[in-house]
């Protein structure tokens, strides 16, 4: 019944091209796929145009950005319906368009784009959420004088992100990936006047670079092994059996196959982008950017790019997996994801900056997605990605609305009682919070997260991730409740002179829409009607209530629900039932909130309940388990040490030996003074010469002398040419 209804809907949505389905299969790809490139191209074009605008042309800029993304959204929906209809006809909707970009003799680099369920649903999600956030941003940034620049960056980001999604070539994906990174940098540092923002931008850029280097290595390796960068190319792509078999047959170091090694490298890139454990440090600081940016980039879309990447290369990651078994790379992904999930949840408990809490919850949720991918396959992870995109965007926009309402106050200890003041925000925020913490049945987060937990439970390798995820779920519920309790309950603890207010409609409207989706999306992925899974895997869709009666599913669900309720309850008991009050004694000093620092106490700030009970742990959590400090202490320290060492070498070893020689000679000279005075002068001069030469030697490397560079250049070329010729002589092109 559902099937035919789905197919009916499909054929209704795609009447005009019902004839050329067959074309889509047998002949060339259908028109929507042909013009798929427009989806990213249009926002990029808009970005270019906006860049040409004057600072004063705000409305035009916003109009361009929103309009272009709107067009992209329409196209995306069209593509989505196309895929739906193909699926409804029972086909595997995967159409690719590829073309040669550069031809280097025999080898040529190919670019191309792809339309399959994965890409289609991501397209719709990104352009839709993006559109809402654009609208929201017009309200949020209304008072910023760099309005136009902001929208230029936003559109550029949207275009690049859509490009990442439709890319069918690792190369194209990597290009867009880097543009995305660039825009993220630009937007985090949007208020570059704030040193903390500038620093955060730099941090984000560099940290993600670390991942991207590995990613690039992986790409190059893959290209070297398979000779193509296309994912799917009618059997010749890198994600298709032939290439994969070749990769599997290739052994690499440490008993890994080439496939596994490349998978790990690519995962490093993904980890950098979506803040997985070693490389997560940039994500919380990224909250220095304007809130819409945090919502769009660092919650909904960009950070999901990593997950999407893993989903894209999933055939590679899972290549060689025995039935029910797993691969090395997937195991790594699962463990790292699980650890990240727990870590994020833990740290989020002890944060006081409203956006930081959300940031850490994002980190943790991304961990969930990774685990989902690794243990349950593409569909599970992607489902959580989609739902999370909606409710996390909702939460961030809500937070933004709160901040906006509280006059740029971000510390939840100085809010409170806003539930009455800004009702819309409160309600929507509560929806988002419940969805995030996975409140049963009604909220999308429940289904998606539950699917992940179920998958982790069924994972043959180890129970570890499963346990970690459960604890994470508990904590998630807890810290979200804590936050809501702080922000919306109790009484206003902020400076008495500032009065919070509800945000304008352009901000609350997107909130409401997102809230609807945060609730509604859940139905797509219930075990009874696994629409999403079968859509992604383009299987036939069946509905059966027996989906629930799989062994151990319901108990598991129940257990998860219990945990969630436990978390909620604890939060309620600690933060709502006796509302948090400001200690009446301490006077209020309202000073400029400095962002991106450890949450430090200021007089007038209330002491958290947990803090008073378990200060040590609290301190650790509040300082994010000292990760930044760790890096500062290790990586940075090493660099510093290296620099210092070279400096020391310069001074001591070079100059020092020289000086020592000189001293020695000098001493000798003094000793021989009585005997012979010529010596002294001689050695003296000698010593001085030595010193001079030593100094000169050191200076030699440094001076910016063009002629010297020329010389070195020429020498290098000479050597290369010589090598070439010698090799030629060896191989006999040059007759020796």
């Amino acid at each position, binding site marked *: 019944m559902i099937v035919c209804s789905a197919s009916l809907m499909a054929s209704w949505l795609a009447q005009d091209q019902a004839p050329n389905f067959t074309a889509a299969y047998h002949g060339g790809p259908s028109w929507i796929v042909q013009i798929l490139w427009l989806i990213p191209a249009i926002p990029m074009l808009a970005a270019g145009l906006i860049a040409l605008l004057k600072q004063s042309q705000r409305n035009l800029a916003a109009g361009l950005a929103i309009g272009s993304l709107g067009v992209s959204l329409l196209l995306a929906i069209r593509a989505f319906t196309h895929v739906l209809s193909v699926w409804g006809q029972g086909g595997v909707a995967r159409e690719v368009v590829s073309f040669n970009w550069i031809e280097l003799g025999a080898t040529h680099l190919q670019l191309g784009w792809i339309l399959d369920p994965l890409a289609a649903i991501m397209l719709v999600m990104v352009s839709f959420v993006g559109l809402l956030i654009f609208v929201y941003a017009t309200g949020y940034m209304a008072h910023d004088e760099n309005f136009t620049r902001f929208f230029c960056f936003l559109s550029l980001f949207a275009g690049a992100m859509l490009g990442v999604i439709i890319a069918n070539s690792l190369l194209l994906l990597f290009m867009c990936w880097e543009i995305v990174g660039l825009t993220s940098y630009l937007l985090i540092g949007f208020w570059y006047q704030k040193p903390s923002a500038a620093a955060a931008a730099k941090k984000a850029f560099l940290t993600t670079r670390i991942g991207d280097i590995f990613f690039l290595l992986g790409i190059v390796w893959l290209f070297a092994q398979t000779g193509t960068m296309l994912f799917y190319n009618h059997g010749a792509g890198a994600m298709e059996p032939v290439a994969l078999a070749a990769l599997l047959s290739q052994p690499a170091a440490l008993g890994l196959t080439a496939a596994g090694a490349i998978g790990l490298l690519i995962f490093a890139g993904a980890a950098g982008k979506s803040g997985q454990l070693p490389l997560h440090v940039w994500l919380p600081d990224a909250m220095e950017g304007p809130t819409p940016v945090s919502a769009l980039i660092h919650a909904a879309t960009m950070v999901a790019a990593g997950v999407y990447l893993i989903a894209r290369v999933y055939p590679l990651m899972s290549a060689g997996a025995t039935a029910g078994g797993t691969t090395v790379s997937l195991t790594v992904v699962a463990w790292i994801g699980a650890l990240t999930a727990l870590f994020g949840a833990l740290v989020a408990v002890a944060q006081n900056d409203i956006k930081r809490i959300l940031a850490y919850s994002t980190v943790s949720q991304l961990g969930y997605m990774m685990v989902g991918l690794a243990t349950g396959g593409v569909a599970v992870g992607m489902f959580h990605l989609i739902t999370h995109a909606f409710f996390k965007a909702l939460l961030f926009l809500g937070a933004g609305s709160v901040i906006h309402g509280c006059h740029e106050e971000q510390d939840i200890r100085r809010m409170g009682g806003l539930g009455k003041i800004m009702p819309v925000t409160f309600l929507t925020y509560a929806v988002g919070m419940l969805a995030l913490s996975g409140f049963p049945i009604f909220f999308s987060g429940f289904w998606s997260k539950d699917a992940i937990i179920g998958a982790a439970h069924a994972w043959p390798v180890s129970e570890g991730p499963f346990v970690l995820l459960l604890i994470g779920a508990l904590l998630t519920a807890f810290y979200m409740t804590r936050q809501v309790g702080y922000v919306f309950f109790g009484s206003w603890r902020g400076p008495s002179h500032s009065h919070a207010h509800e945000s304008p409609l352009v901000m609350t409207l997107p909130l409401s829409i997102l809230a609807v989706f945060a609730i509604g999306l859940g139905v797509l992925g219930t075990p009874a009607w696994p629409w999403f899974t079968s859509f992604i895997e383009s299987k036939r869709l069946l509905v059966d209530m027996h989906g629930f009666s799989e062994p151990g599913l319901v108990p598991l669900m129940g257990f998860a629900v219990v945990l969630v309720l436990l978390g909620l309850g604890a939060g309620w008991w600690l933060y709502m039932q006796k509302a948090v009050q400001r200690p009446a004694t301490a006077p209020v000093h309202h000073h400029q909130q400095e962002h991106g620092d450890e949450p430090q106490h200021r007089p007038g700030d209330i002491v958290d309940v947990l803090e008073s009970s378990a200060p040590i742990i609290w301190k650790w959590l509040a300082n994010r388990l000292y990760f930044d400090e760790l890096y500062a202490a290790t990586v940075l320290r090493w660099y510093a040490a290296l620099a210092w060492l070279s400096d020391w070498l310069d001074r001591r070893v070079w100059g020092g030996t020289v000086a020592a020689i000189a001293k020695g000679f000098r001493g000798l000279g003094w000793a021989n003074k009585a005997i012979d005075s010529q010596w002294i002068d001689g050695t003296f001069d000698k010593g001085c010469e030595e010193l001079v030469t030593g100094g000169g030697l050191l200076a030699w490397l440094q001076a910016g002398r063009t002629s*010297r560079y020329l*010389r070195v250049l*020429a*020498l290098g070329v*000479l050597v290369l040419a*010589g090598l070439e*010729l010698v090799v030629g002589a060896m191989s006999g092109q*040059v007759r020796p």
Partner: protein
Amino acid sequence: MIFGFSIAFLLTAALTVAGALAAALLKNLVHCALSLTVTFAGLALLYLQLDAQFAGFAQILVYIGAVAILVVFAILLTRGAGIAEYRGFSSSWLLGLSIAAATFALLGWAVIKSLPAETEASAAPAVTVQSIGAALMSSYVLPLEIVAVLLTVALIGAVIVAMPEPRTRKSGAESGGGQ
């Protein structure tokens, strides 16, 4: 013919190399520039001996007609003209010289080793100016366009670079004329 080299070739080659050497060794910059033009002319003659009329004349037109003049102007505008600059050679000239010598040795070795000393000269290719023009307009039209753009950009760039800032308008005025 002397050891298989036509006298004309020997003369032009000697002229070319002599000019280059003079450009390398003379103290006075203008002398360097002038001997450089001798080299250019010699190269043009070599082109003519290679039946590349068009290239040869283009060489004269561009290098002697434009580049040499440009160099000379630059020398005059940078006051490098009259005074034979003292220490014309950089401190570590020996290294540079050895590098150059090594380069020559390498190239010479490659040429000698890789080519038969006596290449039978194939018949002179019948290349008329028409054929060159046709080729420029047909199969080389894209490079032609690109070079056109490049030249335009270079023209504008050179003018802008050499354009005097407002404060130094007086001193820069003639340099604008020079470009």
